[in-house]
């Protein structure tokens, strides 16, 4: 197990390195213009552009710049370790920006993931158990709605109803939990619900299908024949086996949302990592883009590792050597 873990971690580091390399390559090679132009005013001169290239470390070939980036990352910079540099636009260190914005995204993901896992699996189980009843149809109707409704639309509708009309929630923006859990919760509940809608729907459908398939297996019939309670049959034998694909999906979904909850973050003005990534990409703020890519790639690699470990606990047939 230990050797397996070490091997996986090394692979994860390599994957993150390759992702960063590709990001660097794309940034330098795609014809999206010279970032120095942003800082050279309306009427730049070649000398001015040269000066800015030098200042932003854009005056050397991209592979040498990548070498500098790796070196600074490993050895640290004026802001400590790891060395991620500073934003071209705000002059704030990338690390401080990530630390400032990450809680918003992580709380968003944590709350939404809790909701979609809880409700998605519960609705899926309910639907499977109550197959072909009104409950099942309602549940699957909800799933269809959840999958079809775009997040931005749901977000705007939710804001209109629960914030503007009913005044039940605090509306857009983010309040740190330290400034009051009630305020924090009131700001987060709508983003959680809206973000989780799509995933709840997907997880409900998936759980239902997996559970129905599992409940048709021979060992379930054996369990029932042995006289086990239906609750034990469903939760102990049926659901457990049905959850392995859910766990895989959950791990990836959570990891991808680290940099990918852009629409939710924008609609609810949370200004988390995803929002920062898209903003920085449009402003050609390479250090910030690299910082967010690093976070996302690390999250994906880490969650994959977690998923593999959880697999072993869920499915005794899986063993690592």
């Amino acid at each position, binding site marked *: 197990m230990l050797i397996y873990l070490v091997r996986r971690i090394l692979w994860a580091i390599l994957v993150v390195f390759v992702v960063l390399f590709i990001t660097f390559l794309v940034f330098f090679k795609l014809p999206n213009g010279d970032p120095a132009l942003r800082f050279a005013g*309306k*009427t730049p001169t*070649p000398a*001015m552009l040269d000066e800015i290239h030098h200042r932003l470390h854009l005056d050397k070939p991209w592979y040498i710049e990548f070498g500098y980036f790796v070196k600074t990352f490993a050895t640290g910079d004026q802001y400590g370790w790891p060395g991620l540099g500073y934003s071209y636009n705000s002059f704030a260190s990338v690390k401080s920006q990530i630390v400032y914005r990450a809680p918003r995204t992580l709380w968003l993901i944590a709350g939404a993931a809790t909701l979609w896992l809880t409700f998605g699996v519960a609705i899926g189980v309910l639907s499977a158990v109550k197959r072909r009843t009104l409950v099942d149809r309602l549940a699957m109707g909800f799933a269809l709605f959840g999958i079809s409704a775009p997040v931005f639309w749901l977000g705007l509708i939710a804001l209109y109803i629960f914030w503007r009309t009913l005044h039940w929630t605090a509306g857009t923006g983010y309040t740190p939990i330290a400034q009051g859990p*009630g305020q924090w919760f009131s700001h987060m509940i709508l983003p959680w619900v809206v973000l989780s809608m799509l995933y709840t729907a997907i997880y409900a459908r998936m759980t239902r299908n997996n559970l129905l398939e599992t409940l048709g297996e021979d060992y379930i019939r054996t369990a029932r024949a042995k006289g086990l309670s239906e609750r034990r049959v469903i939760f102990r034998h049926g659901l457990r086996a049905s959850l392995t694909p859910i766990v895989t999906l959950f791990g990836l979904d959570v990891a991808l949302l680290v940099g990918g909850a852009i629409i939710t973050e924008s609609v609810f003005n949370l200004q988390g990592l995803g929002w920062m990534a898209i903003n920085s990409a449009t402003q050609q703020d390479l250090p910030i883009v690299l910082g967010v890519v690093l976070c996302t790639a690390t999250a994906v690699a880490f969650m994959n590792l977690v998923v593999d470990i959880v697999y072993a606990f869920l499915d005794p047939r899986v063993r690592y050597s």
Partner: protein
Amino acid sequence: MKRTTRRLATALLVVAVGAVVLVAAGSGSRAKSQVSAGGTYKVGWEQSFGFTDNMDPVGEYLAEGFAIQTSLLDRTLVGYNHVPGAAGNKIVPDIATAVPTPTNGGKTYTFHIKQGVKFGPPVNRQVTSADFLNEMKRLASPKDGQEYGFYYNVIKGFASGKGKTISGISTPNASTIVFNLTQPTGDFLYRMSMGATSPQPAEVTKCFEGQAGKYGNDLISTGPYMIQGIDKVDISDCSKITAASGYDGTSKMILVRNPNYDPKTDSTAARQNFPDEFDFLIDANKDDIYSKVAAGEFQDEISSPPGQVLEKYYTSHSPLLKQYSGDRTWYLTMNLTAPPFDDVHVRKAFNFIMNKNALVQAWGGPAIGKVAHHIVPDTLFNNQLAEYNPFATPGDKGSLSKAKAAMKGSKYDTKGNGTCSASACHNVYLLADTRGQDLKMVPVIEADAKKIGITFKVHSINGAYPTLQTPSKNVPIGERPGWGKDYADPLTFFTPLFDGRNIIPNGNTNYSLVGITPAQCKTLKVKGNCTNVPSVNSQLDKCSVLIGQPRLTCYENLDKYLTGTVVPWVPYLWSTATHIIAPNVTQWSFDQFSGSTGYAHVAVK
């Protein structure tokens, strides 16, 4: 089975009820936006500040940055009253005791500094002439991020001193500063009203040498407001300086009153300073911004209103919709070296055929601005060219007969029927952007051009400027450009846009390549027809040294010559600057200089 499902359903219900209870608790403790006397003027700023140099005056080139700096933070020797119209473009004394009259044939300007103007915390001392010189040296140092330093090259020794010395500036005493120029410069006082010339204390700026933009986080104030938390910054040692807490560069900029500001050194005509605080807050959601403005949670916005929002305010003639001349021209640019636009007949015909009215509609119609008929907005010429329209057509909708008449004589009119019939007229590269208005404009341009035989191969790029700004790309026609003034002088249009000597390989703003020479074409890898490209360099030199009405007349003639004879553009829109304000704003003003809110005069309930 039944018991299991019932428990599951019960559990779901409990979770849902718990969530509702928590939501209710949260909303109950939610602080409502209550504005007290003095109050806080909150501005919702869409997506990102977009500052070009993080508010460091040396390199800050964003109009909104100008507005905040000159109204609230940084006073200059001379400035503006931050009001709309011609009055807002009039130079008035700020830190200087009076607007100086140039001597020495227009080459020397002597400013005397008012007593009692102090730097805000943590510097807390009188502003002296040395502080102006210090900032001019920073401005002359390329390493410190100058973005419009070229305006000051007329000062003797400005560029050659590399920021170490400037032979043309002398400070005979603490309250006098003298500028000696290499040539008479009619708009020098305008140049001295820019934020980059504001005094900055060397004891702080020395800590940011060579770190362009970083000083913006700790900008020391001379104006009525300062960055929140700047008073807590320790400037006793460079290593101890941290960013002021009120400005993080990415999500908020909070300005509070500067305790060292003495209103007696200022005039209420220039600054009234009603609110106790200004909050500039980034909001990722445009709809959210306008909802909050309507609800009075934001007082103002820096965004662009969605069509339905603008229409609602516009059609109801709402007093909360504020529209003033944006002093900005939007135009189609034609490359004077690229076929078929290397032929002036084609360029003229293209002007006549274009339905400018439809192009303005593509932007949103009259609520956005009015049809442009020449290069510089009328406001900058005091409306003296208001009647000038060399390509007039009924209703600005284009005229096929006039276009065909203009095309006759063109080398591309091979059939002699007034249409562009040569092969160069087909599949011409049209560079477009992908904003909403671009997507609506392109079909109009294509349809109109087709009437005179020109067809396009459209290349739509999200962010077309970098391509347009690279002469070696040989873009025949670009749909994207717009240009706004830096200050109220036509030079800020003509020199950057039409001086052939300023054409550079990357970041070029003379998109039409007016005045390009065959030698430049070779160096810049321009492949088109580079012989006999018309130049206005001599006219530019002639106008720039004039003062007053002769200067204005000179530039008006240049505008006429360019628009009607050289014809590098199809100008189609003079856009308005639009702001939507909250119902609880009790006083609001437009600042004509910056083209934004006159923060010096706003008030909130």
